[in-house]
């Protein structure tokens, strides 16, 4: 199938080229002119210069050595030489022009930094496009030193917003970034990542940030619609460093060494030990543990509870219990943890790159190495190799071949602090070692008394020794990726280039988890599956002695094949620039997992187990099978697309663009007609710079307007009931379970975007920038509809094309050069405003702001409100018993169920809408100072126009999981406290409605606006004589994640890391060098 398409493509390409070849010879161009073009200053050849005859419309370009050959119709003519970044040059031809002509171009003062925009399908100059596109070059990307390329976009781009909240639905979202806000409600949320012209679905960490030349962020419809159905969330086009014609041979080095702080566990709130123990005493007295200790006496309880229990049984004296309690109160588990497990995190990055040219080809070679050791002693080693070659075997034919190879190994380290719980309950006290320095067991699942007595002569030791265990339970992950890329371009006619391109990607992730027999995990499982005959003393191990090794393999392979024609044709004042092409793409993923038991490394062996039978599990006697039966998965997604994008330019003043794309996908369960969907866009620009009436203060002024439609598809959503294979419990019969409901009415989501933009350059280029205003309209968006689950009770909600949303935004990029002279001071202001709201939501049963009583991290569509927004109960203080008071029918009330019911009714007055839960204004201020060879830049980011709900203590969380928040310390304890605090008393038994009322009341919603110091970057470029003109050496130091400078709330509460671990501060040092 694929082959036949490829054949058809190649065949048609050759046919076309043959025809064109013939046409070429038919025209009457009888005079051949040779020449070369050099930079006037450094005399280096300039490639890609457009050379046009004044008499004829024909044009050619210089090759990588700056040479050109043009056929003209008359011996007397003038050639017009144009190249971005240089002044236009007129080269007269006389009949005596025999030897090659020389042209010396002067650098243009008009354009400062020439950037090439890469849309993935096309490389364009800024004056050739109508779209809203931001390009970040290597210099901008090097402002930050992270190991993830996307993270380096943070705070240097107006359109991209990073969310520090954890990802809610990993099916819909892999990265935590959004381009221009939301354009879907329940669809895929990630922007499309394009690497060197092709969709990249590998792990973003596989891309070496030090090997990136530039990133183009495609924002409006005219820019993104070329990517069709998956471009609704914006497109980020990443271009790696490539071999370039006309660039001198160079070698570059870079190295960065980053030290990070250890995580400050202090940020993770826990009540102090004596307060915590007081709560445990209250629970014990109230009988909270009675049932557990009577019915399931083997299950773990916290150390303080154990002391209370032993005291209640009178197995320890009151004096002993007091002493033991005092010891607990004096201990600090966080401190012990930090001392025992955390290490100094270090990241090292190294890179070498070589680029060069020879007569026929240009090449590049890169090697990168990253070693990242985090605070939990989890370390990864990553190696990147990139290579590229651009080969021109004969005129008009160009072959580009490149590949990226990544090899990464990750070794697990130690468990996070949060994992140390007693039956799921965290405690603030305890220690991992005794006073003599011996590792202590941690009774996380079973009580000591039980472990010491239960079948202890027959079973393995059940104790968990955290100080040793991580050495015996390890996870090793190895990731390999190979990403080759081939492009064959054939210049059929001066204005027509045909290309066939293909990309292949293969990524393999091997995940091996090994619990040796010494590990707690292995001993636990062996014990649970042991069968003990106490009469004979025989122990049957259903899970054999030895280690447990689990293996998980995932392979992703994808290919894309593309045939494309590029047209660049000039007639007089008109220029037509465009592409038309077709593409097919397949992405396949295969996975398998299995577990081996009785595993030992030496001798290398494993022992078979019975995966089928149900065995009684000690000590509960429930029955279970042994997990780890081999499992396989395979998905193949296919897409095919036809696309075209054309711009018509007039005198470089006016431009008109149009693009159209049709996408198809093998959506499971869809009819053929539903598999195809068309998208289009169009736009125009007016470049006033080239008008005679341009105000002289402007060096550049360009106005753009575009409109277009793009889409979103979620391949999981289908029109037919789809079943997943499973196995009947106990019967092992093959079985099927309906996984998604049949809904014939589901359609693709559609997003239309209208964009207006202005680009300017003022006052001798000292004030440059651009401003974009956009309106995004999303229709047929997937929405969760609460529904009458009397139909199918697996879910309480159903997905439908129920919603429409409107989002409006402004993006401003303002760069100024404030001072020139010995100290150069430049400022960049990035400002983004995005306001979105649900405009339609066809929930059959209406929706109400009471659904906004959430933590603000889930999308809740309410017509007229932002997708993420918050509401809260009105608050009337505490009563004299420490109960929170709300309103019911206008009166103060403590009947929380009534309050809740009123709030969910129409026109409720006891609930208030508070606004967006995500920043509506955000951006950064970057100041850069240059003094001699020193350069300093400081990035301060801001987010504003949103609310956050502060997490508060809920009794159920505190009692069962040991989780509390700082409001715990201000809780109502004695009559009169109601005048001093807004935090209700702690109650037992738990009253969930009361807890929820308090947590969701208006007093716990704070203004989220804040200013953060992101990074400071200092660099020094010593002047060294031995360097060629492109060579340099740069030494730099960087400090990042420097913390809050200001918050709108006066509690010093960090709205982005809500009483949680903050990213550690990092301090990096390094150098970059080019020879």
């Amino acid at each position, binding site marked *: 199938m694929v082959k036949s398409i490829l054949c058809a493509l190649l065949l048609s390409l050759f046919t076309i080229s043959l025809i064109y070849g013939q046409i070429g010879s038919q025209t009457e161009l009888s005079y051949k002119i040779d020449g070369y073009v050099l930079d006037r200053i450094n005399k280096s050849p300039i490639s890609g210069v457009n050379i046009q005859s004044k008499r004829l419309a024909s044009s050619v370009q210089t090759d990588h050595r700056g040479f050109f050959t043009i056929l003209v119709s008359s011996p007397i003519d003038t050639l017009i030489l144009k190249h971005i970044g240089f002044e236009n040059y007129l080269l007269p031809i006389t009949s005596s022009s025999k030897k090659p002509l020389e042209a010396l171009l002067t650098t243009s003062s008009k354009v400062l930094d020439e950037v090439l925009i890469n849309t993935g399908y096309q490389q364009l100059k800024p004056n050739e496009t109508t779209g809203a596109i931001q390009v970040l070059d290597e210099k901008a990307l090097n402002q930050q030193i992270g190991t993830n390329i996307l993270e380096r976009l943070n705070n240097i781009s107006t359109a991209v917003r990073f969310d520090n909240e954890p990802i809610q639905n990993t099916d819909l979202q892999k990265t935590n970034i959004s381009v221009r806000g939301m354009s879907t409600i329940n669809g895929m949320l990630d922007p499309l990542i394009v690497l060197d012209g092709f969709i990249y679905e590998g792990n973003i960490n596989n891309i070496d940030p030090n090997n990136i030349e530039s990133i183009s962020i495609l924002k409006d419809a005219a820019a993104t619609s070329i990517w069709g159905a998956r471009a609704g969330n914006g497109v980020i086009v990443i271009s790696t460093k490539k071999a370039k014609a006309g660039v001198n041979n160079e070698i570059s080095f870079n190295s960065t060494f980053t030290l990070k702080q250890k995580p400050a566990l202090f940020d993770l709130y826990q009540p102090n030990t004596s307060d915590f123990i007081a709560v445990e005493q209250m629970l014990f007295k109230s009988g909270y543990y009675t*049932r557990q200790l009577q019915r399931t006496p083997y299950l773990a309880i916290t150390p303080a509870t154990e002391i209370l229990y032993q005291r209640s049984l009178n197995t320890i004296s009151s004096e002993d219990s007091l002493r033991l309690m005092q010891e607990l109160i004096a201990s600090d588990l966080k401190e012990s943890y930090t001392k025992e497990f955390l290490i100094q995190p270090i990241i090292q990055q190294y890179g070498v790159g070589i680029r060069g040219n020879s007569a026929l080809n240009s090449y590049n070679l890169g090697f990168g190495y990253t070693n990242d050791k985090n605070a939990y002693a989890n370390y990864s080693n990553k190696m990147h190799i990139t290579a590229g070659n651009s080969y021109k075997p004969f005129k008009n034919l160009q072959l580009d071949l490149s590949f990226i190879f990544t090899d990464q190994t990750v070794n697990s380290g130690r468990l996070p602090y949060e994992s140390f719980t007693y039956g799921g309950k965290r405690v603030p006290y305890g220690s991992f070692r005794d006073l003599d320095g011996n590792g202590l067991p941690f009774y996380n699942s079973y009580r000591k008394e039980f472990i010491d007595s239960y079948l202890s002569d027959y079973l393995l030791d059940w104790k968990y020794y955290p100080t040793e265990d991580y050495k015996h339970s390890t996870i090793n992950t190895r990731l390999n990726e190979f990403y080759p890329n081939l492009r064959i371009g054939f210049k059929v006619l001066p204005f027509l280039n045909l290309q066939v391109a293909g990309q292949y990607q293969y990524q393999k992730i091997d995940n091996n988890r090994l619990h040796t027999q010494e590990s707690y995990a292995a001993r636990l499982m062996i014990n649970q599956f042991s069968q003990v005959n106490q009469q004979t003393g025989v122990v049957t191990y259903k899970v054999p002695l030895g280690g447990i090794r689990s293996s998980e393999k995932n392979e992703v392979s994808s290919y894309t094949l593309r045939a494309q024609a590029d047209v660049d044709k000039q007639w007089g004042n008109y220029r037509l620039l465009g592409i038309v092409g077709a593409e097919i793409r397949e992405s396949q993923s295969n996975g398998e997992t299995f577990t081996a038991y009785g595993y030992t490394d030496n001798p290398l062996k494993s022992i078979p187990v019975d995966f089928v039978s149900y065995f*009684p599990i000690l000590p509960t*006697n429930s029955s279970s099978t042994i997990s780890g039966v081999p499992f396989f998965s395979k*998905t*193949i997604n296919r897409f095919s697309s036809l696309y075209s994008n054309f711009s018509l330019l007039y005198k470089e003043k006016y431009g008109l663009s149009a693009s159209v794309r049709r996408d198809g996908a093998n959506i499971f369960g869809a009819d053929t007609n539903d598999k195809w969907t068309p998208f289009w866009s169009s736009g125009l620009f007016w470049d006033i710079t080239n008008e005679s009436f341009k105000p002289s203060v402007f060096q550049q002024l360009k106005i753009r307007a575009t409109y277009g439609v793009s889409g979103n598809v979620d391949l999981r959503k289908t029109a037919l009931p789809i079943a997943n294979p499973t196995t009947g419990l106990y019967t092992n019969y093959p079985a*099927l379970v309906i996984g998604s409901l049949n809904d014939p009415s589901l359609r693709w989501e559609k997003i239309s975007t209208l964009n207006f933009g202005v680009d300017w350059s003022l006052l001798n280029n000292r004030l440059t920038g651009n401003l974009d205003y956009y309106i995004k309209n999303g229709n047929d968006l997937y929405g969760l509809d609460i529904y009458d689950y009397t*139909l199918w009770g697996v879910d309480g909600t159903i997905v439908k094309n129920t919603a429409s949303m409107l989002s409006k935004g402004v993006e401003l990029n303002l760069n100024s050069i404030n001072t020139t002279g010995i100290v150069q001071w430049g400022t960049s202001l990035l400002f983004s405003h995005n306001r979105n709201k649900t405009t339609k939501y066809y929930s059959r049963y209406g929706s109400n702001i009471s659904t906004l009583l959430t933590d603000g991290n889930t999308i809740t569509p309410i017509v007229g409100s932002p997708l993420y927004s918050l509401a809260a109960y009105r608050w009337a203080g505490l009563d004299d018993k420490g109960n929170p008071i709300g309103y019911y029918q206008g009166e103060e009330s403590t009947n929380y169920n009534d309050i809740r019911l009123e709030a969910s009714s129409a026109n409720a007055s006891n609930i208030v809408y508070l606004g967006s839960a995500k920043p509506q204004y955000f951006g950064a201020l970057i100041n850069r100072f240059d003094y001699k060879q020193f350069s300093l830049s400081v990035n301060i980011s801001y987010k504003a126009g949103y609310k956050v709900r502060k997490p508060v203590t809920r009794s159920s969380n505190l009692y069962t999981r040991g989780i509390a928040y700082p409001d715990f310390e201000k809780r109502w304890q004695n009559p009169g406290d109601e005048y001093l605090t807004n935090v209700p008393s702690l109650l037992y038994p738990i009253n969930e409605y009361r807890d929820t009322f308090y947590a969701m009341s208006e007093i716990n919603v704070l203004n989220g606006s804040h200013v953060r110091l992101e990074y400071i970057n200092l660099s020094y470029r010593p002047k060294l004589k031995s360097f060629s003109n492109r060579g340099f050496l740069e030494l730099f130091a960087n400090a990042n994640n420097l913390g809050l400078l200001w918050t709108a709330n006066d509690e010093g509460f960090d709205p982005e890391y809500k009483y949680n671990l903050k990213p550690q501060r990092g301090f990096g040092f390094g150098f970059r060098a080019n020879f």
Partner: protein
Amino acid sequence: MKKQTYILLFLPLFLMLGCNKYLDLQSNNALVVPKSLDDFQKLLDANSFINFNMCSNGEISADDYFLKTTVFEQFSDDARDLYLWRNFNYLFNNDWAKAYIPIYTSNLVLEGLEKLAITESNKDEFNRIKGSALYVRGSQLLSLVWVFAKAYNPNTSSSDLGVVLRSSSNPNETSKRASVEESYNFILNDLKDAVKYLPKVSTHVMRPSQSAAFASLARTYLSMSVYDSAYYYADKALESNNELIDFNQLTKTSPYPLERFNKETIYYAQLAPMYPNIHPFYASIDTLLYNSYHVDDLRKDIYFSQTGDGYFQFKGSYCGSIDLFGGIATDELYLIRAESAARLNNISSALNDLNTLLQKRWITGRYVALATDDNDVLVNTILEERRKELLMRGLRWIDIKRLNVLNGSISIVRKLNGETYTLPANDNRFALPLPQDVIQSSGMPQNPY
């Protein structure tokens, strides 16, 4: 120039021709759009969805167990409200939602079968699947109607609110509550149709058989107090399996003395584990009920074990585990036949069934066979034994309800922290409320309370 432009235009056309085929590849081999008989059988074999969703809120509301205050206080609001018959505000996920999973699957299968042709070679399989789907739908609706509607009362059943009788998988069909009478008729139709299509015996007790359908019919009729039909169908069901386990052969000390899929099991189902209330680790068995077992009655040790606080927890599930049995076993059929016979004045038959059962439950030789000709004594003894034999199987709630329709004598009393809560006989709350979100989204009437 024109020629070339045409060719350029043809290029995409080449692709177009190939592409629809290119896109026809199945995107995930682990996904199936169920179409074949084989698929339908597999849908019905997903037993954790089909067999494990019997409603449990009735048993939670009934009186074979109690909660100690300390246990009660640990529960969620919903679980506490349910214990005190006042859970009027609960939402997804719940018994109601779970019960409609097997009903949806059955409807999907029945609709799918209509699109397939019956041939000589697939006839048996086709019928078995059709009978199974009908049985699953009927028996699941029965468990719903027992919990969410009033007991069948011939005088009021045509106006009493029943359950939603779904017979299609169409997601756009609105839910309507049928009357109790319509509900029972629908269930009886399904089960009687199932009898026509099901094989006499099934390959596994998780798959319905003809005797399972007979047994469910017997249950249905008994809950409607239609004794002759109850007798008839119990008798039919016992034709293919009338085995009883001799409790003398079980190990009393075993954590779960009764095995899963034991020989009494006719159809294996489990109560949906929605709330901890009746979980053996939380519930304490009613002390009077425990004391009513004679010392020679083996069930006293087979069914119960003492907990640290001196009370007793249940360990006699036919699931052989902590799970609670919600299927049908021969012991229940003996008791249905006995009760029906006694109420129909067939005393000898009733005595025979009762004594046969109890002989297997007592220490060998200790059981003195009951002999009486007093019909009331006999019925009362059978009812007492029925409670003692069939506890924690989702039957007690409907038994209380149907017996209250007859003579209104059973009310339930709960004591917590010194307070007493009473559910008087025939109270409206015996029809448990539907989930609030279902009421809200469907506009159906809620049960009065």
